[in-house]
């Protein structure tokens, strides 16, 4: 089956990100979609000049490719991860360009960090720069103090990244943990029923009664404003859409996985690029040439397709992201990572400065435009004040 199914969102809404996009006409739809999907293309548009992504196609713009559908990919998660680290270090050595990892302290970016440490040659660590926040230290203090502090260069994300220009951006190969969520299962909120009751893994998504029952159990459905949209959108548009595709999507759980993976193709590119563009003026060309798309890899995609029907691999007992935790544990030998480390939306704390537009928090599966600054002040107040005072004194 050709790859076009993956970009089903774009097929469903042709031209959404393409050259003929009538972005304003679709804005209302997009905004409602973003409420449904969270990992969709919409949230970045809020508060931004939509020309950032107008007349562009994220695939063409960033050169990201989507794998053909497969259900028998044989590589393990660890094997792919090892290869990715080796490839990134090779690229860094060849270009003699440092790697800038945005590390939130969460599971996804910690996997990237550990893989890089595992495969680094002696002089590679001189080319590793880790941008993080004090919240990253808060969440994963053991990782920070054991492997990062006084061992590799660290940058304060809040202070340094917002001041990046196109030139400083181009000094690095950029890598982050986004968008691993969509690879593994998608939003936790959409997976809750299956985590609670494994029988959902065996019920066909074509059973519309059960499908609606499943959606009614998700926490997304608790939100009054999403209730009708969610049901209408998924049961009408997406069901028709997936019906037309030649895939091995059978169960409701697989369906939800596919729903999230459907947004995978736009999650990283549009989210992150829009912010880089709007806040730092980084052009698409720089983005394409200087971002290493770690999880946006056809091998990971094929792994996800193959294992979308294997909850025992993706999940442990009441847990998820088991392959990532196992990889991290094998290196750090900290049982906390293997046995418990919860997902707490870590990437959401890697904040972006957007003067006069509020603060933006980018997450793996949603982008939140935080107009209510009070929610961010706890963490950011010092950073904001320091940053502005430094700028003022410099001027």
């Amino acid at each position: 089956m050709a790859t076009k199914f993956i970009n089903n969102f774009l097929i469903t809404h042709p031209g959404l990100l393409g050259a003929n996009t009538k972005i304003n006409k679709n804005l209302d739809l997009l905004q409602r979609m973003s409420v449904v999907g969270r990992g969709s293309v919409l949230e970045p548009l809020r508060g931004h000049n939509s020309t950032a992504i107008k007349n562009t196609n994220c695939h063409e713009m960033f050169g990201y490719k989507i794998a053909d559908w497969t259900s028998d990919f044989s590589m393990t998660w660890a094997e792919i991860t090892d290869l990715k680290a080796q490839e990134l270090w090779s690229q860094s050595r060849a270009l003699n360009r440092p790697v800038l990892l945005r590390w939130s302290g969460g599971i996804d970016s910690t996997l990237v960090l550990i893989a890089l440490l595992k495969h680094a040659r002696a002089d590679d660590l001189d080319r590793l720069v880790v941008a993080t926040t004090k919240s990253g230290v808060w969440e994963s203090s053991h990782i920070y103090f054991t492997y990062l502090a006084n061992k590799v260069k660290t940058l304060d994300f809040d202070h340094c990244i917002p001041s990046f220009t196109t030139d400083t951006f181009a000094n690095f190969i950029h890598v982050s943990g986004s968008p691993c969520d969509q690879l593994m299962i998608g939003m936790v909120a959409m997976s809750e029923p299956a985590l609670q009751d494994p029988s959902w893994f065996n019920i066909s998504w074509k059973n519309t009664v059960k499908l609606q029952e499943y959606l009614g159990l998700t926490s997304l459905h608790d939100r009054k404003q999403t209730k009708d949209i969610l049901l209408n959108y998924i049961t009408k548009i997406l069901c028709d859409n997936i019906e037309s595709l030649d895939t091995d999507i059978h169960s409701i759980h697989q369906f939800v996985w596919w729903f999230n993976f459907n947004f995978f193709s736009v999650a990283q590119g549009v989210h992150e690029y829009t912010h880089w563009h709007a806040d730092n003026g980084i052009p698409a060309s720089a983005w394409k040439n200087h971002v290493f798309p770690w999880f946006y890899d056809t091998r990971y995609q094929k792994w996800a397709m193959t294992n979308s029907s294997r909850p025992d691999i993706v999940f442990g007992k009441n847990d998820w992201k088991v392959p990532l935790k196992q990889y991290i544990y094998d290196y750090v030998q900290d049982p906390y990572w293997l046995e418990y480390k919860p997902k707490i939306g870590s990437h959401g704390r890697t904040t972006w400065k957007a003067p006069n537009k509020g603060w933006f928090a980018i997450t793996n599966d949603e982008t939140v435009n935080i107009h209510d600054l009070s929610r961010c002040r706890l963490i950011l107040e010092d950073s904001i004040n320091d940053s502005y005072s430094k700028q003022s004194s410099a001027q």
Partner: protein
Amino acid sequence: MFTHSGYPRSFTVQKYRLYALFDPRHDCFIYVNHNLSVARSVQALMSSKAPLWLYELWVPATTPKTTIDNNNCDSWTLPIGAPRPEITFFQLHFEDIKIIDCTEINSLGQMAGLDLKDNVSEESKLLKDYAIMVGWFCQYLCTIESTADDMISRVAILDKVYQKTDIFDADVYLFISEIYKILMLSLTEQEVKQKIIVLMLKFDSIVLVNKFSKQRLNFLKILVDQWQQSS
């Protein structure tokens, strides 16, 4: 060694606010304190061991037969059927603290609003003991931090960003940062003791006496002496 009920020495109001840290993993509370800053600090310093959800408990001033304190908080849990907190970053650190009114006394003379557990796991007891120790340090030794966030800023010395040496002498700043780091990274009470003994040897006590709160330093010196004698 480390004990603290979580309550102030005396209180006379009809109901009292107690800040309690709930551990969703073990489904119980593992620490209580009447001081919000201390509770927040413990929450932060325990973050690599257990994400903890902060509750505000309204507890009765007239002590019932069974109330909640740091001796027994791991025996208390949220009522059956009450929603357990989701562990998300915003919920942990930004959302309003949830209030539970425990002022009613049931027919058994027990505090209502929470449930007593039948069994307490050894693992949660260890976590509770560690939290009490962390709380002890936060309350009696490192009280100069006003918020947990300030404390993390101090510990997480990202390159040339958080060196607030204009507030305190650099030695004192580093000394307290090291204590926070020890509390954050150690796994057992014994490990904390050993590392703090080494820390005391590393720093020049005479210099610290001149710059650091004598009362707080004396606390620490007495502690270390006791540890060394008992080991």
